[in-house]
Every structure is written in structure tokens, then in C-alpha cells.
């Protein structure tokens, strides 16, 4: 049976949701909604979506969707989730899940309490190299995790960054964790599968990369973040940078056997392996081994491209497919709620250190 999908929130990211939903044959996008009718109308017109609304209650009542995608700013996620699950919808939420950790807990409780499923758009973790990394880890190819480094670059000179920079009232600037809160999910959600402690030690530095130091002027955005996390067995280092070029997006997992490096921008996974060549030969071999890995990854990517599976948001398509399947089969959703909660808990503890005045 074809599931009906609806979207509330017709900003920039809604385009990506529409495009990925339309690639999944088992579902049908029936309507979109935005408090601002013009925004709902333009999205529906551009993608020939049959229904558009500016009142989510009216949309839920008339369209009766099976799944509601919530792509509004996070301030509204809790109320919308409650409204959606009360109407019988499963919920797919754009990150950040909510303003505060307790709101994330309430969102998950609302969904599970109503017997509905919920997932969050942690799409990079469903890119092919990220899934391959998880497989390698689960099969023991890396050994036990020792340390994880997650790097996320951001171009504030880009279209979205400029919109945030020049508008002091932009919703991103009103988040408790400001700019960091809008992106930190993608930095931390790669770490939590390896660092399973509920409350790791956290040390954070946030500052302005243009030389203004750690104290922001009124209205100024902190745009560089360094976080050190220490669990019982695994440590991690999370970096967010708006100034490093090229704008990178990567994950390195140091294991007791091998070390893996995922480059999300280039969609590659390479391994630094232990190798057994003696003396100088041992120093000659590694570049060729890594080159072989890159060649293999390049060929895989060509293969994906030739099969039209190399879209920017291909990870979102995979994640959505798995989420919709979990609803159909009544199996666990693709992202464990415990991971979502640990990400949100870490985020809040980081923001408490960067913006203590907000949480005082």
C-alpha cells in the first residue's frame, strides 16, 4: 500500500525532502504546509504537489498523511510532533530536533507514547561510505575504537550562511546554541555510535575565526568550535570550522587494528592498515595501499553515478527508505532513539560551556 507523506515547513531544506521522497516508489507526497502561504504555494507549484496549506491542522485533517516531515525551525518541533502523532502520523524531523534536550526527550516520548515512529534527518550517516564504515566496525575490521575525530566545515559566505549572517533576526541566531546548534548534530551523530557513554567528559572552546577571540560582540556569531570528549574507553574530538578551506566533512575512526577515514565530501572511505613489510619497504607500501583504496572508491562512485545513485542527498533517500520500511514492517526505526538522545544531551552540555549566559 502506498503511504501518504506530507511536509510542514517550506524553507530551503524542504526542496531536498521533496526530491528524495519522490524517488521512493512506495510513497506519495500528498501535500505541503507553511504558516506563510506564499512559501507553501511556491513549493507545491514548482514540484506539482497536489495540496498546499498554511494550517497544519487542516492539512492533517484533510490529507490524513501516514508520515509528517517536520522541516520547520526547531522552536516548533515539539508542538508539531504532538499534533502529528495525535493525528496518527509517524514523524520525520529535520535537525536540530529541538531547542533543549528535555524537548528532545518530550518529542521521543510523544511519538513512542502514541505508538508512532520517529526519525531524524541524520542523512550523512546513510551515505555509502558511512554505512561501509559501520559494517567494517561491526565486523571487527577496525578492532575496538580508541579515538574518533569528526570534522564539519561550513561556508558562511555561501547562500545560506549569508542569510544567517546578514539577518540578526534569523531563526538560527535565536537558537540557544546559535549557529553551532544548526550543524552540531552532523558532527556528533557520527561520534555517538563509537562513544557509547551516557555522560562523557566534555571540554569545549568556541570562538570567532576572524580574530575577535572567544567573546563575541553583541550580535556577532561564534563560528569556530572545538570539542574534546572523553568516555570510559573512547575519546573523540569534534571540530566545526567556518574558516577552514576547502569546506570539509570527514570522520576518522582510530581502531586497535586499523584506522578508517571517511571523506563525506568526496564520498570515499580509506583504511590506514597495519602492514607487515619490514624496514624501508614498510614505508614504501602505505601510499600504494591507500592509492588502491582511493582507486577502488573512485570506481565505486563511477558505478553509483552510472546507476543514478550519486545524488547529493542520496543518504537521505536511504534513510527515508529505511524509515518508511520500519513503519511498514513495524520494526525499529533506522536511528536508535538512544543515539538521538545522546547527541542532544552532548549538544546541550557543549552549549552550556560556550554560552553559559543562555543556560544560567
Amino acid at each position, binding site marked *: 500500500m502506498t503511504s501518504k507523506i506530507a511536509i510542514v515547513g*517550506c*524553507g*530551503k531544506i*524542504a*526542496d531536498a525532502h521533496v*526530491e528524495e521522497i*519522490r*524517488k521512493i516508489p512506495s510513497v506519495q507526497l500528498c501535500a505541503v504546509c507553511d504558516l*506563510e502561504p*506564499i*512559501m507553501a504555494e*511556491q*513549493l507545491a*507549484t*514548482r514540484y*506539482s504537489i497536489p495540496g498546499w496549506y498554511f494550517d497544519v491542522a487542516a492539512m492533517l485533517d484533510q490529507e490524513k498523511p501516514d508520515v509528517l516531515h517536520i522541516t520547520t525551525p526547531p522552536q516548533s518541533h515539539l508542538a508539531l510532533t504532538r499534533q502529528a502523532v495525535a493525528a496518527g502520523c509517524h514523524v520525520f524531523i529535520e535537525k536540530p530536533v529541538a531547542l533543549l534536550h528535555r524537548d528532545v526527550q518530550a518529542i521521543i516520548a510523544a511519538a513512542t507514547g502514541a505508538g508512532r515512529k520517529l526519525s531524524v534527518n541524520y542523512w550523512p550517516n546513510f551515505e555509502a561510505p558511512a554505512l561501509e564504515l559501520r559494517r567494517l566496525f561491526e565486523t571487527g575490521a577496525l578492532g575496538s575504537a580508541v579515538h574518533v575525530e569528526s570534522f564539519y566545515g561550513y561556508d558562511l559566505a555561501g*547562500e*545560506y550562511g*549569508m*542569510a544567517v549572517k*546578514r*539577518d540578526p*533576526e534569523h531563526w538560527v541566531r535565536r537558537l540557544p546554541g546559535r549557529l553551532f546548534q544548526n550543524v552540531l548534530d552532523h558532527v556528533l551523530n557520527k561520534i555517538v555510535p563509537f562513544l557509547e557513554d551516557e555522560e562523557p567528559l566534555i571540554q569545549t572552546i568556541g570562538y570567532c575565526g576572524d580574530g575577535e577571540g572567544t567573546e563575541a560582540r553583541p550580535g556577532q556569531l561564534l563560528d569556530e568550535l572545538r570539542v574534546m570528549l572523553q568516555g570510559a574507553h573512547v575519546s573523540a574530538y569534534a571540530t566545526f570550522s567556518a574558516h577552514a578551506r576547502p569546506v570539509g566533512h570527514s570522520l576518522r575512526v582510530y581502531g586497535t587494528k586499523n584506522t578508517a577515514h571517511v571523506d563525506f565530501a568526496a564520498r570515499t572511505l580509506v583504511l590506514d592498515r597495519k602492514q607487515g613489510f619490514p624496514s624501508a619497504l614498510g614505508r614504501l607500501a602505505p601510499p600504494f595501499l591507500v592509492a588502491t583504496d582511493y582507486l577502488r572508491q573512485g570506481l565505486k562512485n563511477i558505478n553509483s*553515478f552510472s546507476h*543514478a545513485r*550519486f*545524488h547529493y542527498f542520496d543518504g537521505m533517500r536511504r534513510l527515508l527508505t529505511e524509515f518508511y520500511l520500519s513503519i511498514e514492517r513495524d520494526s525499529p526505526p533506522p536511528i536508535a532513539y538512544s543515539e538521538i538522545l545522546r547527541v542532544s544531551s552532548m549538544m546541550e552540555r557543549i552549549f552550556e560551556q560556550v554560552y553559559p549566559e543562555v543556560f544560567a
Partner: protein
Amino acid sequence: MKVLVTGAGGFLGVHVVERLLAHGYTDIRCFLRDSSKADRLLQLSASHQGAQLELAYGNLRSKSDCARALADVSLVFHLAAGLKGSAAELFADSVVASRNLLDALNARDDSFGQKARVVLVSSFGVYGVVPLGRGVQVDERTPLEDHPERRDIYSYSKLRQEQLFWDYQRKAGYELVVLRPGVIYGPGGGAFSNRVGLQIGPVFFHMGGNNLLPLAYVTNCAEAIVVAGIHPDSAGQVYNVHDDDLPTASRYLREYKRNVGRIRSFRMPYFAVRLLAWLLEAYHRHSLGQLPAIITRYKAAAAWGGNKFSNSKLHQLGWSQLVTTYDAMAANFQYLHKQQEKE
């Protein structure tokens, strides 16, 4: 009379303010989003005796900022619009912002809203030229686009913006004048319009060929906006804005190469553009959007369909070019050459 100019800090906005001052309008509220764009307005203020330029900062996405912008104003020149970015950003900056401005105008309790005159700077992009066939003349009677979703996002947002102004005009009764400029160019602007071609990687694909380029030099365009905006007979009218003696796209490219610098260009005749568009569309469809369909047959017909243009209605209103096309192109290329040397 207090005049409001939205988007006053932009490429066109500064010139509109300058032409308003030249026409004797001195009490001008310049509404702009970005304080870094205030320098040229401050220079204008200093160089025009009696000028009372009020620099007001804000964002038209905010309803309260719109109300503040309109206070005591009886003539509005609405230039602010999204030029680039995602579809959502363009619609928020052009259409939602316009709706907020119009709501604020309607909400004024001094019955000034009904008496006010609004001058909207729209675009050539609103015309639905594709069904008319190749080589058709575009004038103010040309029908508007029926399939905005098949055009570029900018054209769609400008069409929706203009429709909004006409809808509100019918309901609220204020005077509306609409200007539809072609390709606005000049120092401070870009080098090439899509009507000349597209830069893809290191190669400039010249698709405009011998089509006329509806250039509107920024000073001439600003003059047209002010002349039409203040003319007593222009209420309820639409005016296309472009210069006289229009060059072809290939002449523009040739002059660019001669005056600015060499670029690697590849000329594509119209049938080849259509063929490429068909291939891109087919691949886009087959791959579910793996590569963007930057050119479609519909967009190609709209941009490179070889239209002719008329600005006779604007001339009848008394507008004439302040800068000849020859001098305008020379000034533009001189600016671009200097920019290139800086880089």
C-alpha cells in the same frame, strides 16, 4: 513629499536615488538591509545640496520593519528583491517581503495607503514568450508567463511578486506603476547576462548568437523608473525598460573580448542549444535529478528565442537615454577591465 526607495543600497537602488535627487525629490527614505552598502548613499547625500536622505535599515521580511519603512511616505519605489540563492530565499526576499510591504501599506490608518503611489521594478522575465514562437516582438501587451514552474526561479519569483502587486492594487486602489527592465548592466554589475551565454567550467558557452540583447544601462534604467514613477499619466501602466540601439549578444561578447580580456568561448547555434537542452532534460529525468537541468528546451526558448523588443511606450512618456549605448558599453567594459586587473 516623502519618497521611499527599498533596496536603496543595491546596484540599481543607488542610481534611482540619484535620479530622484536630480528630478528634485530631496526627502527620500533609503531602506536597505545591509549597512555596508550605505557608503554611496552617504556620498550622494553629501554631494546634493538640500538632499535629506534618511538611511533606514531593516528587513522587509519583518512586518514591523515594513510599517516603519512606510511611515509618512506617499511615493514608494520598490526595488528590493532576491537575486540569488535557493528558491525559498528568493521567494522570501521578493514575494513574502512584497506582501509584507503591501499589507503594511493597507494597514496605514491615515488613509494614505489608498492615496499612495507604488512603483514596482519587475522584470522582462515575467513574459510568457515561449508559446509565441521564435523572433516575436516583446512589448507591454505580451502575455505573462503561464508556466512559471518551467522557468528559472528568479523569473518565477518576479512574476509572483508582480501578480501580488496587481492583486493588492485592485483591492486597495492605490496607484501602481510597473517597470519591466531587460538586462540591467553597468559599473558594479556582472559581466554577462544568461542571454549572452553560460560560463560552464573554463568555457563560456555563447548561446545568444545574433539575438538582440535588451540592455538597460543602470543610469538609463534608473531614469526610466523615476520618469515613469512620477509621471501623472503612468498610473496603472506597465513599461518595458531597455536602451535604444541594442547590440546583439555576439557583438557584446566581441566587444567584451576586445575591451576587457580574452575568454575561451564556444558558440552554440540555437539548434545545438535545443539539442543539448533535450539531452540534459532526458538525463535529468532518467537519473532523477543527478545532474541539474540547467538548460531545458523551455528555458532555452525563453532566453535565446531571438525576441525583438520595443521601448516606444517608455519614449512616449518622455524618457530618453541619458547615456548612449556606445558610451554605456564603454563605461561598463572599462569597469570590468579594472576589476579583472584587480583580480
